[in-house]
């Protein structure tokens, strides 16, 4: 009898249907790879970035996917270190999602630098005072940790399990997973934080600059906290999406509700801290440099004005947090995932303003105009790349690996 390629006891679609499903993603991937090579070959003049927008949509995408990928570290923390058993039912999926997010982030970083072949300078000639150095070190090592966490899941494919060494390897790696998870949490704390430090330390940019604790500006802690709060919500939402696409139930509702409860309280505490930070910045930090709050939210050529702040803090911050901390909110699936999507949008808005609005706001009073930027097609398609690549990797992982321990039970 031949060993099946799929995990035991689950149903998967036929090969033809599977390939058809992946085809659009492959097409997007192909165009994105073409754009990537154009950028590497001809240089960054293939983008619409300029001297005012040294950081643009790529860096935003980077910050956003890393924050959303934070679900992997925080679920790992809950499952292996705190010992919340129920989270283990979704942890494999969180790890795959993390791998997608972090490889995408590193790829985008590799695209974004002007001299990619000198990329290793950031390690070799490391300036430890730079937040970007901290990001590069922690990000790379953490991606290593994520891959280590992913390996036992791969090894659990029935065909691979037939090999006794791989069988033992998967078992042994599961045994000491807490060690890897703890290292991952340690690294994640620092790189999520130092990504927040990237804008926070820019004392020449009053929109971004924040005071802080020792060498860390407040944004350091806010970024870590928000990633830990929203990351698991992103994992849950993507899992729900997978359920919708496959037409199967993959995890029990109490897993969603548990993640939503933890995330809800984290989000609430985060958004309170963020509000205090914003009020202090608007009334003390910025005025000391000659700016009022409305200087940063008026005459914006994108017309969103102060609404972006209201959207981030009230609509996509307090509102989802309040829904998620109430039992009624969590028990209604539509409310739960509606709130999760709002929280995800809020996180993306936060990363957006902390990258792009920082650079857009004019500083010299004789230059009243805001700096305007719209991404080139090369930037847009490479920003979509993680989605296409994610669809492919997650589909493959779902098809061949036992990502969801509860799948068999839920789909008899």
């Amino acid at each position, binding site marked *: 009898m031949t060993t099946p390629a799929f995990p035991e006891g689950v149903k998967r679609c036929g090969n033809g249907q599977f390939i058809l499903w992946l085809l659009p993603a492959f097409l997007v991937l192909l165009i994105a790879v073409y754009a990537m090579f154009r950028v590497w070959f001809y240089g960054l003049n293939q983008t619409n970035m300029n001297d005012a927008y040294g950081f643009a949509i790529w860096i935003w995408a980077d910050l956003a996917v890393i924050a959303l990928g934070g679900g992997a570290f925080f679920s790992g923390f809950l499952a292996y270190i705190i010992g919340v058993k129920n989270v283990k039912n979704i942890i494999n999926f969180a790890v795959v999602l993390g791998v997608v997010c972090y490889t995408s982030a590193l790829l985008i970083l590799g695209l974004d630098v002007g001299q990619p072949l000198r990329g290793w300078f950031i*390690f*070799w*000639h*490391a*300036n*430890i*005072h730079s937040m970007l150095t*901290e990001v590069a*070190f922690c990000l790379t*090592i953490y991606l*290593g*940790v994520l891959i*280590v966490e992913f390996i036992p899941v791969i090894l659990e494919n029935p065909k691979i399990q037939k090999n*006794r*060494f*791989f069988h*033992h*390897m998967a078992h*042994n*790696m599961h045994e*000491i997973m807490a*060690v*890897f998870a703890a*290292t991952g949490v*340690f*690294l994640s704390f*620092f790189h999520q934080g130092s990504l927040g430090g990237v804008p926070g330390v820019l004392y020449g940019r009053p929109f971004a600059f924040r005071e802080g604790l020792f060498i860390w500006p407040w944004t350091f802690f806010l970024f870590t906290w928000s990633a830990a709060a929203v990351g698991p919500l992103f994992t849950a939402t993507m899992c729900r999406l997978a359920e919708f696409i496959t037409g199967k139930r993959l995890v029990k509702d109490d897993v969603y509700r548990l993640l939503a409860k933890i995330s809800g309280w984290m989000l609430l505490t985060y958004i309170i801290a963020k509000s205090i930070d914003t009020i202090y910045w608007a009334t003390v930090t910025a005025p000391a440099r000659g700016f009022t709050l409305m200087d940063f939210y008026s005459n914006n050529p994108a017309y969103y004005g102060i609404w972006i702040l209201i959207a981030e803090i009230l609509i996509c911050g307090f509102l989802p947090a309040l829904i998620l901390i109430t039992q009624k909110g969590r028990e209604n699936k539509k409310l739960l995932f509606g709130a999760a999507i709002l929280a995800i949008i809020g996180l993306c808005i936060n990363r957006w303003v902390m990258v792009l609005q920082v650079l857009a706001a004019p500083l010299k009073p004789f230059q009243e105009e805001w700096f305007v930027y719209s991404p080139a097609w090369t930037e847009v398609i490479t920003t979509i790349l993680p989605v296409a690549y994610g669809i492919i990797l997650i589909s493959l992982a779902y098809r061949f690996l036992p990502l969801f321990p509860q799948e068999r039970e839920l789909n008899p």
Partner: protein
Amino acid sequence: MFPFLYEWSWYLGQYLFMGAAGFAISVVGAGLTYCIVMSIIHTMQEDEHADH
């Protein structure tokens, strides 16, 4: 990264940063090595049992 490079300076921050990075890499490396070694031992033990 190393003391022979221009930008190296002998002070606490440098030790802490490189120490933390080295520690994380060591933990992951040691963990992986442990898993590989134990898996080899387990596989060999199984083979011995199979021989008998």
